[in-house]
């Protein structure tokens, strides 16, 4: 029983990280109609950027803040201006292909230009664990849950409570109507790209201490992000959260009780079940795509 609860706790923590990447993915899809196949690399690049600042002598928190600023500039604004804006008019598929090309290019740049090795990454949380009602919980899991939870709650509050956040939701729901109401659609879409970049940096901060910084670390987390987003419901930000946590917990349980070798297959299986029985996602509302 104790094992089981521990698996749930650490699975929820891992799932919360998936959820952060999935959240950015969902937001991009809602507001800009972008499916970003380089989402995993958007997590990998900040990990190396933070390592770079740390190597230059900055403490972790400063490296994190600097990377956030850089990510907003490059992965947010730059990605939108250089790749999304010129391509969005051609439709979804050329843009998807371009993000695939981007993913290959970024991975290869890190491998050829820097290193193909896995690099250790400092944890933002103290090591060790503590006992809570007879169950051992690590500080890292708790810290991850608290930080990821705070970000998700904060983002929800921003989207639901502030004028800017509500305007962003309006753009996601109906771009034309939002424009008629005088909302600056372009600016709102840009905000979504910036938020996505920051979410990716936070995911990198939380996931890299266990995954290690490696050029292909984004493959796995990117895939989990897609599946989490679809399982939860592509058109619901809360869905990404549920999907991420569900994948994280089930992976842990399957890895422990069934076979660690097939942990990576859990997300696919869950995805296939969801699209067979509840295609709009667990929390999603079915929608008619525009013609």
């Amino acid at each position, binding site marked *: 029983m104790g094992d089981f609860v521990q698996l749930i706790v650490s699975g929820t923590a891992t799932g919360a990280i998936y959820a952060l990447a999935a959240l950015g993915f969902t937001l991009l899809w809602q507001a800009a109609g972008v499916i970003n196949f380089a989402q995993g690399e958007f997590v990998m690049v900040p990990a190396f950027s933070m390592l770079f600042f740390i190597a230059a002598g900055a403490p972790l928190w400063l490296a994190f803040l600097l990377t956030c600023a850089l990510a907003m500039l490059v992965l947010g604004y730059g990605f939108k201006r250089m790749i999304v804006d010129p*391509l969005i008019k051609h439709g979804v598929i050329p843009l998807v292909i*371009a993000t695939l090309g981007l993913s290959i290019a970024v*991975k*290869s740049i890190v491998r*050829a230009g820097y290193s193909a090795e896995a690099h250790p990454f400092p944890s933002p949380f103290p090591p060790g664990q503590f006992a809570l009602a007879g169950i051992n919980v690590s500080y890292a899991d708790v810290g991850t849950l608290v930080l990821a939870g705070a970000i998700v709650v904060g983002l929800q509050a921003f989207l639901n409570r502030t004028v800017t956040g509500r305007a962003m939701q309006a753009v996601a729901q109906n771009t034309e109507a939002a424009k008629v109401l005088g909302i600056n659609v372009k600016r709102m879409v840009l905000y979504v790209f910036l938020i996505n970049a920051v979410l990716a940096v936070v995911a990198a901060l939380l996931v890299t201490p266990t995954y290690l910084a490696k050029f292909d670390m984004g493959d796995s987390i990117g895939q989990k992000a897609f599946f989490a987003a679809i399982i939860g419901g592509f058109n619901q930000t809360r869905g990404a959260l549920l999907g991420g946590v569900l994948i994280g917990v089930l992976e842990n349980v399957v890895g422990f009780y069934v076979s660690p070798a097939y942990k990576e*297959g859990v*997300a696919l299986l869950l995805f*296939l079940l969801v*699209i*067979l029985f509840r295609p709009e996602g667990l929390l999603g509302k079915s929608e008619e795509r525009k013609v």
Partner: protein
Amino acid sequence: MNATTAKSGLLAAALVALAVAAAFMKRSDVYLLSLCCVYLMATFGLNLTVGYAGQMSLGQAAFFGIGAYHAAILLKLGFPFFVVLPIAAVSCFAIGLALGFPALRVQHHYLAFATLGFNVLVFLVMRNEEKVTGGTFGISGIPRPTVLGVSMEGHLAFFYFTLASLVVLAVLLWWLLRSPWGRAFAALRDNPIRAESLGVNITAYTLLAFAIGAACAGVGGVYYAALVEFIEPGPFHVSTSLLMLLAVIVGGSGRFFGPVLGTIIIILLPELLRSSSMEALKFMQKWYLVFFGVAVVALMVWLPGGLLSIGDRFRKAPAAKEKNS
């Protein structure tokens, strides 16, 4: 009519020239050409899914691998090559149907995610089920076939055999696309809603295109196993699927010969860079994937129809595309 005859004549002449040239090539170059033919079987199939049915598949390498492992296991058990070939093709076709059905039922771009996950899963099975697949050690000593009493053991003989098989496969696909049945594919890619209103069952046709594409990859996999004579999970990773997809897109998806150009770029070019002795080219080899990735992005921005659409761009004749597709 005349243009078509001239084109097929030119193509036949090119094939004959290639076959003659191969007789004078180094052993390693013939091997590379055979490898190209083998990958082309898979990318021709993928072009059916991507170019004609307008769907993204990120799992072609998984089907390629399934075909290869079928071949490795069955050929070593002593099954004849021409029995293994249909078994592998039918298995891939059936798996394609089973995987494509749930994905295509919902939203069409879900196929991309389903195939991506499927490829990851297949890779895990190949690596972990050591009793069947040999795990990371793979399966070695795969025999090459004997066709009509002629042994395909020699590298040149096997190249001719692969090239001939590729031509047969290409002709079959060409015939399929010219048939009324195949024209429905193009119709649903160009305007799915119109196609549906004309009575084309979009989901059924897309599913079939995907499954046929998967079967082609399975066939390619069988030839791959016989060519390389040793297989392990590495070549069937998701990254190969991505390269195959990009090969089709870069060449020009929905153009019959698009995959040829794309496959040369992804298979032949990096190998030529690797084997070259010039320092500058050695440098290129390391950075090859970087250039390739950036080139794909640039291509999507400036020439979303692929390299073979460059002619249309200059002619600015919108009719040309319809004629080619």
